[in-house]
């Protein structure tokens, strides 16, 4: 802002200033500690009302008891003292929302923490809102692509769905998040969903690394990062997911699409447990308060697909839960599994074996299913889950038997190659048309005679060949979204043409090479 404009603005504010004298409800602090303040007075304070302390900081009144009010401090409590005044504001907590937040990293209160200056033109919305009713919604019918073959083929996610990502530490949960955000880059701007990544209790270095990757690849343009790190007070960890969903709802209510990632809700539950214990709420199972289910259900129910009358916008949610030693029957995991519309289960064994993404297809499911898939993908990936499940059983069986019949051996060979095809490196999300091509090649047996360890090479080459010399096939799949006779023939021709080149260069698994 130029100096003249700044002076003008200042003059306007000072001349327009009219401090009205009004009666304010006040109380006094009787105890402070661990981010919780107990105050007396404040007789008319409401639950979840914001209060202001003498030092200008804010808190939220959570416990209304007979003689005192339990207040959660929004920030650090170092400079609050016994006897300090506490004022009711009469307002509920709000956060900034809108396109002004795109490309920014903010804290749980919506304050920028990326050093890029104040937010301009942001609206304010209440952090606690009721979820939309049944009549205001419609069924999920549009795919949300993650760019990962294993997910888009077998566990398809739709816009407006809630799909849980669950697994032990270091199994690739956040990697799925990064790839999903990057995948949206290839979608035309008018149809591209906005992304919101809510980091709850994560290491600052980890969030910084993710932001750096997204910025490097241009994905931050349509992404908001809400950061409540491990060193932040529990109050901010508790509020961060609600701040994020409020930002996502803004886009949904405008008829646009958004996707939100909560990384992770286990730490969110821990933060809420801490706050509840300090507020002396009675502990229940595993010391969690009695309303721990409601904590997550009211958050996740706010993700939905709205009816056409309300604009048809959607907010897709990917909550992440970290399990301990693969225990998906724990309290928090089972709570969230019962709320969401499916789960993607990541197994450490698969991760260690080199199967990445380490998705256990047997335990993963999408309750929306093929309603969120284009017809072309449905056709090629139709029996993939079943085939892989059969393969896993046969694989275990084959370790014991030495003589297998031909059909079993074929199934094993096919399964090994399909498993190889479903592996994917990080930061390489694939378009739906490429996925259809590659999975078609795998499921129709075109790579049965390629060595298992060369399948990755074949796939990479096939993609490059199709992008370069057979672009029209990919465009046809992307446009028509179905696998009609003509497209199928083109796909077969493309695969066979590339396969000839591949075998010429690398040979087949039988060790033969084609001769000119």
């Amino acid at each position, binding site marked *: 802002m130029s100096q003249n404009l700044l002076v003008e603005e200042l003059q306007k*504010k*000072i001349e327009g200033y009219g401090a009205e004298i009004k009666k304010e409800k006040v109380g006094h602090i009787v105890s402070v500690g661990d981010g919780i303040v107990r105050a007396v007075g404040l007789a008319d304070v409401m639950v979840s009302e914001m209060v202001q302390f003498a030092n200008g900081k804010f808190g939220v009144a959570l416990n209304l008891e007979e003689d*005192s009010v339990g207040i959660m401090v929004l920030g650090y409590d170092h400079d609050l003292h016994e006897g300090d005044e506490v004022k009711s504001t009469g307002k509920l907590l709000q956060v900034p929302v809108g396109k002004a937040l795109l490309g920014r990293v903010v804290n749980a209160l919506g304050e920028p923490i990326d050093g890029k200056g104040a937010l301009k033109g942001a609206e304010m919305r209440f952090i606690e809102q009721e979820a939309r009713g049944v009549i205001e919604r419609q069924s999920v019918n549009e795919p949300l692509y993650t760019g990962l073959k294993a997910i888009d083929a077998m566990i398809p996610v739709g816009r407006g769905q809630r799909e849980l990502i669950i697994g032990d530490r270091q199994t690739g949960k956040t990697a799925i998040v990064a790839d999903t955000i990057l995948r949206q880059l290839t979608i035309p701007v008018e149809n591209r969903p906005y992304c919101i990544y809510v980091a709850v209790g994560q290491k600052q270095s980890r969030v910084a690394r993710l932001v750096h990757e997204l910025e490097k690849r241009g994905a931050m343009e349509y992404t908001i990062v809400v950061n409540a790190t491990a060193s932040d007070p529990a109050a901010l960890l508790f509020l961060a997911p609600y701040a994020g969903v409020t930002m996502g709802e803004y886009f949904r209510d405008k008829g646009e699409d958004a996707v939100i990632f909560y990384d992770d809700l286990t730490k969110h539950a821990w933060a809420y447990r801490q706050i509840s214990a300090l507020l002396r709420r009675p502990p229940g199972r595993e010391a969690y308060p009695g309303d721990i289910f409601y904590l997550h259900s009211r958050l996740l129910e706010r993700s939905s697909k709205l009816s056409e009358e309300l604009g048809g916008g959607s907010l897709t949610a990917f909550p992440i839960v970290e399990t301990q030693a693969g225990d998906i029957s724990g309290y928090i995991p089972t709570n969230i599994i019962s709320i969401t519309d499916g789960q993607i289960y990541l197994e450490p064994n698969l991760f260690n074996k080199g199967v990445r993404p380490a998705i256990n297809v047997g335990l993963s499911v999408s309750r929306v299913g093929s309603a969120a898939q284009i017809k072309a993908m449905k056709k090629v990936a139709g029996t993939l889950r079943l085939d892989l499940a059969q393969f896993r059983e046969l694989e275990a069986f084959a370790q014991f038997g030495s003589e297998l019949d031909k059909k079993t051996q074929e199934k094993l060979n096919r399964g090994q190659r399909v498993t190889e095809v479903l592996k994917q490196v990080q930061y390489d999300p694939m378009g739906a048309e490429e996925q259809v091509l590659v999975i078609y090649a795998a499921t129709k047996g075109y790579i049965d005679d390629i060595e298992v360890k060369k399948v990755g090479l074949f796939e990479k080459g096939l993609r490059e060949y199709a992008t370069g010399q057979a672009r029209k096939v990919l465009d046809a799949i992307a446009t028509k979204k179905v696998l009609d006779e003509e497209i199928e023939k083109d796909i077969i021709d493309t695969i066979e043409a590339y396969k000839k080149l591949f075998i010429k260069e690398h040979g087949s698994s039988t060790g033969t090479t084609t001769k000119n």
Partner: protein
Amino acid sequence: MLATSPRKIAQALLGAIENSSQPDRTMTSFAQWLYQSGLWDKRHRIISAFADEEMNSQGLHKIRVTTARKLSEDEQEAIMKVVRAEQQNVDPKHLLFDWNVDEALLGGIKIAFDGAVIDATLQHRLSILETTIR
């Protein structure tokens, strides 16, 4: 943290004194109990709560008036008149005025009563202005 609130302790003490034939002895026993139960450090809060309870029981309302300089009698009278008019449902005899001076307020007046505050001090207006400009 106190297991029970100062207000509850104060209410119990007030009840005990009112029902006692030897209030002096009751208060001495109370002081002894405070010491033995480890609540000695909280005595100021408990005494303050007791004062509030005692006033409530007599239907008295404490009006705390803070100004940047000492007020003349006429000025105090004028303020009392305004407060009495505001608190029409309270007997004027039950309004106890507590006059305080705090130079940090710079000017104006701050009136606190029944858990509410009317802050018309210059200090408060300047802090609002600071927030507005920011």
